[in-house]
């Protein structure tokens, strides 16, 4: 028996259309989970859905910044053994050129939506006893930051604090709540940004392991935290950064 098996577990993954969320969905399905994926881009969400291993999975197109779409998603869900809050955005912009809307938008998608989603899942009794809730945060905020990412850092650090309180509140029901703090992962999240390819290549060399992480390397840590092997881990912030924050 594989101790990391997710057989019989039903897992919800947000931001499953691409990048880390896609890898998490695929790896969870390979580990035997029944996966419900959600995202905003129908075409890309369906691509992820086609890559899932096994049968019985479900996809729900939803813009979670819209409270009524979020409520519709919640109502359509079966009870969950795992919830992976992964949806997030990054927009490198130095503080003085942000406007109020930029700040609201980033805080909304990266912090407020995960908090509301968790609240609604609990209020609608969708979280099973013994479930595992995982929030994909970042090293940016809790561990360090970079220019152009002060609001991003604040939005991600909000999750690191959030899980501590929630893990205390849900401990009586053996529900575990944890964050994963990845360093830079190879996804297309920076394709349209103010950071050049050349700068990204230079940035890679700052990692003691001399590369960025791969989406599946985050997915495997999600499997770890979803599995029964980690029934005594709650309120923790798991650092996965190729050694970046050591120096």
């Amino acid at each position, binding site marked *: 028996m594989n101790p990391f098996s997710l057989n019989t577990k039903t897992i919800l993954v947000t931001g499953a259309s691409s990048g880390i969320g896609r890898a998490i969905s695929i790896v969870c399905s390979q580990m035997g989970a029944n996966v419900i994926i959600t995202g905003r881009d129908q075409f890309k969400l369906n691509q992820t859905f086609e890559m899932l291993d096994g049968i019985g999975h479900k996809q729900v197109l939803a813009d979670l910044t819209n409270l009524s779409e979020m409520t519709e998603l919640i109502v359509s869900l079966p009870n969950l053994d795992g919830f992976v809050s992964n949806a997030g955005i990054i927009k490198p912009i130095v503080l003085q*050129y942000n406007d109020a809307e930029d700040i609201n938008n980033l805080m909304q998608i990266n912090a407020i939506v995960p908090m509301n989603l968790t609240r609604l899942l609990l209020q609608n009794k969708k979280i099973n006893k013994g479930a595992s809730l995982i929030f994909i945060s970042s090293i940016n905020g809790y561990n360090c930051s970079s220019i152009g990412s002060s609001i991003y850092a604040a939005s991600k650090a909000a999750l690191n604090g959030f899980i501590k309180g929630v893990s205390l509140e849900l401990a009586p029901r053996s529900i575990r709540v944890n964050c994963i703090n990845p360093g830079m992962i190879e996804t297309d999240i920076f394709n349209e940004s*103010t*950071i050049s390819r*050349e700068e990204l290549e230079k940035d890679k060399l700052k990692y003691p392991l001399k590369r960025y992480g791969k989406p599946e390397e985050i997915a495997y840590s999600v499997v770890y935290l979803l599995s029964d092997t980690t029934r005594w881990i709650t309120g923790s912030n798991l650092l996965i950064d190729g050694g970046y924050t050591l120096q």
Partner: protein
Amino acid sequence: MDIGEFIKNFATQFSVFVDNTHFRDLDEWSSLNAMAILNMISKKYAVVLKPEEMKETNSIQELFNLVNSKKGK
């Protein structure tokens, strides 16, 4: 004594910008400036430049011309 003039005099201790200033050669130029300038162009002139496009310009005039050529497109 006039504070405006004093500030100008103070500023002359740092780089003076003219149209043919090669901004990348300035001692105080950094990746922070590069990002801030891209953000400024995006917010004030509604032109989104890629970092690679900005790299092809050297002087303020060249950057101005590039932004101007993309404005409204």
